[in-house]
């Protein structure tokens, strides 16, 4: 207990320092700003703003990047509610009931409840993060290379198989990502692999350019060609008009609590994250509701539950990332990449070796969420006005910012071309119905998993069975195998049931 208080005091001193507060604010502000803009998802936001953080001290860089992440997930629901134009898949669920509410003239209440639900979810997630990371990291300190290989394999397989209708395609994307992660000098032998003699590739492909290319460019292109943005429902919103009724509060309380729990659970699992959490919590609420017929027509539970689930998942996704060094979703993969750029080796030692970083980040999450509450309640009108900017003027400026951002990371022109190349890779993959998120996960984990795999087999003198001699690694591998078997079973059943009919979710 004493230890915990001491840690929190350390965290407070970092998060409440002038720079801590400043960068936290900049992060949540920019996150909300870009998150509000329709058609720009969290990944693109993060990828675009990430270069700014490279010029900061790692403590503050992570604080700011975290702020961008959860700020964007607050902001993402605004356009979803007001215009039915969700920036991210997670805020699409919020739009299911948020947009009907806005059409009924209850946009204010919807936005208010969104902010409250997001806040509640976030705080639940942060508490779990603070509580679980330290014991988990303590266990993880005893992990050898075998356990890491097993965990990463679990993460990659789970990310491809759970929550995706096309497991084989996702597995291909993961493999491609792993292969792309090999580009550069091999750490053990010093051999240059897949570089085609280009010295600029010796350090590997630049993560930022890869991430912006895969996620940002297709989004920019999609919105550049968009003819007309939908009309904003209710363009003037004042705080006075936003207050939910007593009935709204009563109906939202339990969904929020359940949503937070569901979100925190799924967020902490490798490979699932916010998307699955929002869908599950929405489905649960509709099942539990006394009036399920209202869902989809403006039921406030349909906003409260997925929003709290999403934000709880955002926070609890940091648990495996910070305590094990294994990212569960592509956003966390970027976080991990940034840590590595700053020379921090992600893993269980981070909490011990840099307690200021870990606890500073945790306290800053709380601080940032309070800031967001202010930014999103009294100041919501400002964001709504932002939606009125014509999109055809906005996206060229986004292109300019992206260019400067990517160039300023290394001052290497080749990064811009890598971005373009991966942009077209992303477009091509989307056209053939591949998901790009697993690719990025594979790309970040690739070098690590290879390294640990080699090391584990050196230790056990080439005996693959050694993975099952070790209880933890063995258990994780069995779970991984179970997921695969389950996925195959589901697929086969669907195939047998749908025989003869054209089905679009195969492969």
């Amino acid at each position, binding site marked *: 207990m004493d230890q915990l208080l001491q840690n929190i005091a350390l965290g407070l001193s970092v998060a409440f320092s002038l720079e801590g507060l400043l960068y936290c604010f900049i992060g949540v502000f920019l996150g909300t700003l870009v998150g509000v803009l329709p058609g720009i998802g969290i990944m693109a936001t993060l990828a675009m703003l990430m270069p700014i953080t490279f010029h900061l001290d790692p403590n503050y860089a992570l604080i700011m990047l975290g702020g961008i992440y959860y700020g964007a997930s607050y902001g993402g629901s605004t356009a979803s509610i007001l215009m039915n134009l969700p920036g991210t898949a997670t805020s699409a669920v919020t739009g299911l009931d948020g947009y009907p509410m806005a059409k009924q003239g209850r946009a204010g209440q919807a936005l208010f409840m969104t902010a409250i639900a997001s806040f509640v979810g976030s705080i639940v997630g942060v508490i779990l993060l603070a509580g679980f990371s330290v014991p988990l990291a303590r266990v993880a300190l005893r992990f050898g290379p075998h356990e890491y290989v097993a965990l990463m394999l679990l993460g990659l397989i789970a990310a491809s198989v759970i929550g995706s209708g096309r497991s084989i395609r996702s597995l291909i994307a993961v493999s491609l990502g792993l292969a792309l992660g090999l580009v550069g000098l091999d750490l053990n032998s010093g051999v240059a692999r897949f570089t085609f003699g280009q010295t600029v590739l010796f350090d590997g492909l630049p993560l930022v350019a890869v991430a912006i290319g895969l996620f940002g460019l297709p989004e920019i292109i999609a919105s550049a060609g968009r003819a007309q943005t939908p009309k904003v429902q209710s363009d003037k919103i004042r705080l006075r008009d936003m207050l939910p009724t007593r009935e709204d509060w009563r109906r939202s309380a339990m969904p929020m609590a359940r949503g937070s729990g569901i979100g925190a659970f799924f967020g902490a699992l490798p490979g699932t994250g916010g998307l699955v959490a929002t869908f599950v919590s929405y489905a649960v609420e509709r099942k539990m509701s006394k009036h399920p017929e209202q869902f989809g027509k403006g039921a406030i539970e349909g906003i409260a539950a997925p929003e709290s689930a999403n934000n709880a998942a955002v926070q609890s996704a940091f648990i495996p990332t910070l305590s094990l060094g294994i990212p569960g979703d592509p956003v966390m993969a970027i976080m991990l990449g940034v840590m590595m750029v700053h020379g921090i080796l992600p893993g269980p030692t981070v909490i011990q070796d840099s307690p200021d970083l870990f606890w500073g980040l945790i306290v800053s999450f709380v601080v940032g969420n309070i800031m967001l509450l202010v930014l999103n309640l009294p100041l919501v009108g400002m964001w709504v006005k932002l939606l009125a900017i014509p999109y055809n003027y906005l996206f060229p400026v986004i292109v300019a910012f992206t260019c400067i951002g990517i160039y300023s990371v290394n001052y290497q022109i080749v990064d811009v071309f890598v*971005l373009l190349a991966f942009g077209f890779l992303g477009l091509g993959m989307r056209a053939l119905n591949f998901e790009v998120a697993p690719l990025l996960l594979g790309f970040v984990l690739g070098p690590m998993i290879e390294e640990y795999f080699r090391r584990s087999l050196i230790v056990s003198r080439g005996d693959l069975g050694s993975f099952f001699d070790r209880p933890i690694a063995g258990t994780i591998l069995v779970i991984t195998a179970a997921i695969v078997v389950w996925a195959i079973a589901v697929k086969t059943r669907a195939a047998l049931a749908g025989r003869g009919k054209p089905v679009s979710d195969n492969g």
Partner: protein
Amino acid sequence: MRFVTERLEDVLAAIVTLAVGIFVVTEGSSYKIGTLSQMGPGYFPVILGWTMIVLAVLILVASRPAEIPMTLSHRQLRGMLFVAASFAAFALTIERFGMVPSITLTVFLASLANDRNTLVKAGLLGLGSALACALIFRVGLGLQIEAF
């Protein structure tokens, strides 16, 4: 032939995956493979390549008739070309001419990706954002990119 046309999307996906897989295996085999207990730089890539080849075959096996993949509209094509051109323009001009001319050109080209932006509007937007970027990034944040 009907098998292929009905499953065009899956067949294309499988062919691309197969090609990438074969490439990774061949390229990986050119490095030292080593043994399981002492893996060389080629070992892991070869495993990956084979995994992709197997997955490509699985796509074909699991393939069922589906709708034809979406086609590219004129508008999307225009958006894609101009956005790509604007990124390329930035890369080619930033070091030679500095931020203001480079961003003007970048934003000008990007604006034309949307057919509602006229040449004049695109030019003005380009110039305006170039000046703003110079102020924010050069003067404000002090990035090492010359304005001219």
